[in-house]
Structure formats: structure tokens, C-alpha cells
């Protein structure tokens, strides 16, 4: 049988219906702004600290490393070393962690069809941190620097699957169920972490405490070389999955009706969320609410289409966390505040506002 094409019913001579154009300009503008902001912030953040290095010298140092003999080198004798051994690894880690967590949030919200899903809120971060805590306490090193990342991934994967299975009913995830499931999972993982604190020695204890607070203090290149590839794999996977996540917002059944293999997309997305969360948590601890705030704000600017949302969230998350880390280490003289504290301070009220707003809109609680 021949397939018929729907033909416009408009009488002859009527103009063809015009379709609105896509919002390319808006997305491009956002990407442009974020890229510039990220670049500027990188130079500024690297210069700030106990040893102040002016922006032009930071730039000069970067250019010299790239083999370009341009700009001034840091005037301080320790300047170049401070930049490349302390500041840049930390800046790079902030970018990697921010991008991972924000992308994980966007992905998770897409999979759950719920704008309140976020790795820390639903307990995935806590699960990954608990598993990573085991590595610290028992000093496991079978895979070198990778050990902690492997454990964080496993912990994240198990908790994401748990949340998914427990909070789902009739092919949907209700807001209340999701948030309450998060409380339950967070409680169990906190108990696990408390137990690790109890049995650990003083050094392990201190390390785990900082973990729970979230901090980029003491980041080394070795850590970045582990976290960055994991984040890269997760991000590429997330972008490839983006189009399918759009379809998923129709709901399970309607998505299947338009040809989406819903279960496969779900499993893929869950593995990616675990990967991205592992990259975010393995060396930085629990940095909450980045995955909630960033995708939400990005959605307000460019709409919910995941092909733009996922990469834009990753970029915005990277910039945001870089800024937050700058505040964390410069707000109080001689003190390095935990970055998780800063993000939670901002993210907590935001979460509350989002909760109120979601409740007000039709179907928010269902």
C-alpha cells in the first residue's frame, strides 16, 4: 500500500503554513557567553590566591607553555610553579567536576521526567562517596589513582539503579516519591559513611569529613587525568543520547509509540549518570545542587531540548563551579572553605523555590 502524505487543506492560493524557526541564535549566544566567561574566569581564578599573579602574567605563562613566546612570565620566582602545580590542576578539576555534575543533573531529569532529580538530592552522590570512602579507609590501591574512581562509579551505579527502581510507579516518577526515596538513600549512605568514620584512623577520618563537605583543595594533575577522561566519555554519551531524551518526555508509552526503545535508553542514561557522578565525586566529594540549579537556569534560557541543554549545562556547570571554587578559597583570608558548603548555601534555597513553583504548576506533585 502506498503511504499517503498529508496535504495542506488550505485552498489553492493560500500561503503555505510557516513553521517557526529554531532558537539557534539564542543557543549560540549562550555558548558564546559561557565560553568567554569560562576563559576569563580561568585566567582570573588561576591568578588569585596567597600568591597574587596578575592576569597578563597568567596568560603569558599559558602561552609560553603552548610554545608561544608572548606576554610576560610571572615575576615572582615561585609564580610559574604555583600556577602549574597548584592552581591549574585545581582550575581544571573545578571545570571537570562542574561539567560532570551539571550534565548528570540534566540527564537524570530527562530520564526521570522530573525537574527535581539531581545526583546529590536523590542520594547518588552519597552512594558514590560511600563507595569511595571504603577505598580511603581500607587504603585500597589495586588500580592506583583509578581505584577510587572505580568505586565511586560502582557506588553511583548501584544507587542510581536503586532510586530508579524504587521511585518508579506506572511508568512515571512522582516528585514526592523521588524526593522521599532520596531521603531514604541518603540516610543509608550517611550511615555507611558514619561507620567508615568510626572505624577509620585519624587521617582517613579527616579525609572523609572533607569528602562529605566537598572540596577541591589539594587537587593534583594525577586526579585530573583520571576524572577528565571519565567525564569526557560521560559527556559524549550524554550528547549522543540527547535527542532520545526529548522523546522520552512524552512518557514511556507514547515514546515507545514513536519508536523509542525506552528501556535501552534508560539503562544507557543510568550508566552515564553514574559515570558523570563518579567523575564529579571521586576526588571532589559531595558538591550538591550544581546538577539542579544549572540545567534549570539553562532550560529557562534555551528551552528544554536536550541537544542544547546537555552541552550548555555542562559548560555552565564548569563555569559556575570554577566561580564557586574561587569564592571558596578567597572569601576568607587564609581559609579554604569547602566548596560543597557554598553550592549548598545557594542551592538549598533554590531547591525550595523550585519545589514551591513545581507544586503550584498543574501536575507538579503527580
Amino acid at each position: 500500500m502506498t503511504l499517503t502524505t498529508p496535504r495542506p487543506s488550505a485552498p489553492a492560493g493560500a500561503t503555505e503554513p510557516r513553521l517557526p524557526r529554531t532558537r539557534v541564535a539564542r543557543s549560540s549566544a549562550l555558548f558564546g557567553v559561557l565560553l568567554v566567561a569560562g576563559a576569563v574566569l580561568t585566567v582570573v581564578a588561576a591568578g588569585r590566591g596567597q600568591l597574587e599573579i596578575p592576569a597578563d602574567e597568567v596568560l603569558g605563562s599559558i602561552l609560553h607553555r603552548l610554545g608561544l613566546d608572548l606576554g610576560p612570565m610571572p615575576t615572582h620566582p615561585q609564580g610559574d610553579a604555583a600556577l602549574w602545580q597548584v592552581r591549574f590542576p585545581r582550575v581544571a578539576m573545578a571545570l571537570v567536576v562542574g561539567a560532570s555534575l551539571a550534565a548528570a543533573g540534566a540527564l537524570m531529569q530527562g530520564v526521570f521526567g522530573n525537574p527535581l532529580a539531581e545526583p546529590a538530592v536523590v542520594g547518588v552522590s552519597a552512594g558514590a562517596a560511600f563507595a569511595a570512602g571504603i577505598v580511603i579507609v581500607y587504603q585500597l590501591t589495586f588500580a592506583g589513582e583509578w581505584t577510587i574512581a572505580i568505586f565511586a562509579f560502582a557506588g553511583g551505579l548501584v544507587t542510581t539503579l536503586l532510586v530508579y527502581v524504587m521511585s518508579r510507579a506506572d511508568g512515571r516518577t512522582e516528585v514526592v516519591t523521588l524526593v522521599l526515596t532520596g531521603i531514604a538513600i541518603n540516610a543509608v549512605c550517611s550511615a555507611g559513611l558514619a561507620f567508615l568514620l568510626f572505624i577509620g584512623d585519624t587521617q582517613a577520618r579527616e579525609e572523609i569529613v572533607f569528602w562529605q563537605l566537598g572540596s577541591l583543595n589539594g587537587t593534583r594533575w594525577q586526579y585530573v587525568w583520571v576524572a577528565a577522561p571519565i567525564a569526557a566519555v560521560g559527556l559524549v554519551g550524554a550528547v549522543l543520547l540527547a535527542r532520545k531524551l526529548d522523546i522520552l518526555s512524552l512518557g514511556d508509552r507514547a515514546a515507545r509509540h514513536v519508536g523509542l526503545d525506552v528501556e535501552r535508553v534508560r539503562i544507557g542514561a543510568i550508566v552515564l549518570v553514574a559515570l558523570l557522578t563518579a567523575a564529579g565525586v571521586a576526588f571532589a566529594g559531595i558538591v550538591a545542587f550544581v546538577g539542579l540549579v544549572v540545567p534549570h537556569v539553562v532550560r529557562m534560557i534555551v528551552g528544554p531540548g536536550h541537544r542544547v541543554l546537555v552541552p550548555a549545562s555542562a559548560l555552565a556547570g564548569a563555569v559556575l563551579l570554577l566561580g564557586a571554587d574561587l569564592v571558596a578559597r578567597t572569601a576568607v583570608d587564609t581559609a579554604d572553605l569547602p566548596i560543597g558548603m557554598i553550592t549548598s548555601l545557594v542551592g538549598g534555597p533554590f531547591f525550595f523555590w523550585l519545589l514551591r513553583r513545581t507544586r503550584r504548576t498543574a501536575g507538579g506533585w503527580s
Partner: protein
Amino acid sequence: MSLRVQGVDVTIAGHQVLTDVDVSIAPGELLALVGPNGAGKTTLLNVLAGDLEPRAGSVELDGRPVAGIRVRDLARRRAVLPQEQRLAFGFRVIDVVRMGRSPWTGTAAEDRDDEVVAAAMDRTDVIHLAERIYPTLSGGEKSRTSLARVISQATEIVLLDEPTAALDIRHSEQVLTEARRLARAGHAVVAVLHDLSIAAAHADRICVLADGRVRADGPPSEVMRPDLLAEVYGHPVDVITHRDRLVVIPHTIDDALPEEAPCVPTP
């Protein structure tokens, strides 16, 4: 093309919902599924859509069991308008309609996406809503947007679950006219309908379900009989002909209604 359901039994949570149902749909035909609440209309539609696997019996598309057809391949052959229209995020109407084209991604048909989407939106009267955010639409606008998505999927089989439920007279006539036009163009269309007069006016064939069984299956003139309908619905009706259309009018319940105090005091 033929979609055929034979000897289908469906049990949901221990409750027998469909019993020994035989229905077949053919191209060029608009089939209406009618029956009282809980008769199994939506369940039968779900079986036809391949969402629900029957406990017994067969569901075959061109002789192949529907359960064995890949999700993507099935989506190129049948589209479904669900009863409930939800969307997790605030996509624009145009984006929602475009989702109907997703089974054709990577095929030659993809090149005509814009043309097909524009035509579908024009026919369902949603082209002026294109930039609106779907969750902010009224119930009727949502239904029509979903119908546009279903039409843009360009499939041989179109299954509609209560397409007129949230619509006013003008738009429900438009939707049914559109369904009929699809049938005329060679599609096989199945619609679950509540309003018997609407079903009688537009359907080529009406299948009456009651208690999970097919009670009648035939052209409106054969099926829309007062005695049959009265028995199936447990309520007396009149069937009259008005301007060549069969109109079903339920009797009012004449039990003396208690005299109630008027809500608004009469001046």
C-alpha cells in the same frame, strides 16, 4: 495491510478484561470502538497498538505477531493518540509535533519532515500555536497538538484513544473529519469514542464492546439499534435519523426528582 486480533483474552490484575475478541481493521476504513465504561475499549486499543500482550489469542500485522516486531519498525506502521497527554518538560508545540517524525530519522522520508509537520499542524488547526509552550495549553489544544504529532508520523495505521474527549463541538467535528479523511486516503483508522451520535456520523464500521466481549460489529445502520444499545448500556435510548445522520438520544430518567431548593433565590 491487515491488522488482526483473534480470540484475544486479556487479564489485568486477575480481572478478565477482554474475552475471546475478534477484530480486524483494513485500509480505507474508520472503525469506531464504542461501549459502556469499563467495557474494554481502551484495553483493546492497547492490544492493537502492541502495548499489551494478550494472555491468549493472536495480534497480527500482515500475518506477523505484533509482539515480534521491533519498536522502531512498528512506529513506522502505526501511530497512537493516547488518552492522557502529559509532557515532562515545557517543549513548544512545534517541537512536540516534530517528535512524531522521529521514527523516520535516518530515512529518505526525513527530508520531508518540515512539509509533513506543517501540513499536520495546519489540518489540526494548531499552526497558530506553534510557538506556545505545550504544558500551558488548554486540554483541547493539547489534544489537537497530539493529533498533529500522530498525523505527522505518517503511518498506515492510526489508533485514537478518545480523540474528542476534551474537545468542543467544532474541534471534535474537525478531528473526526480529519480521521475520516485519513481513512479515505487509505489509512486504517481506529477510534475509541464515547459519543454514539458522533460514532454513527463518522465511522464506516462500529464495534460495540460490552463486558470485554464484542456485542456487535458492522456499519452504523446495522449496529445503532435501540434494542441493542439499550441492552448494552442498560439504559433505554431512541435512535432517530436527522439529515441522513443517525442520532442516539438517551431517555431521561423520569423518576420524580426531589424538589430541591433553588441555589439562587428567585427575585
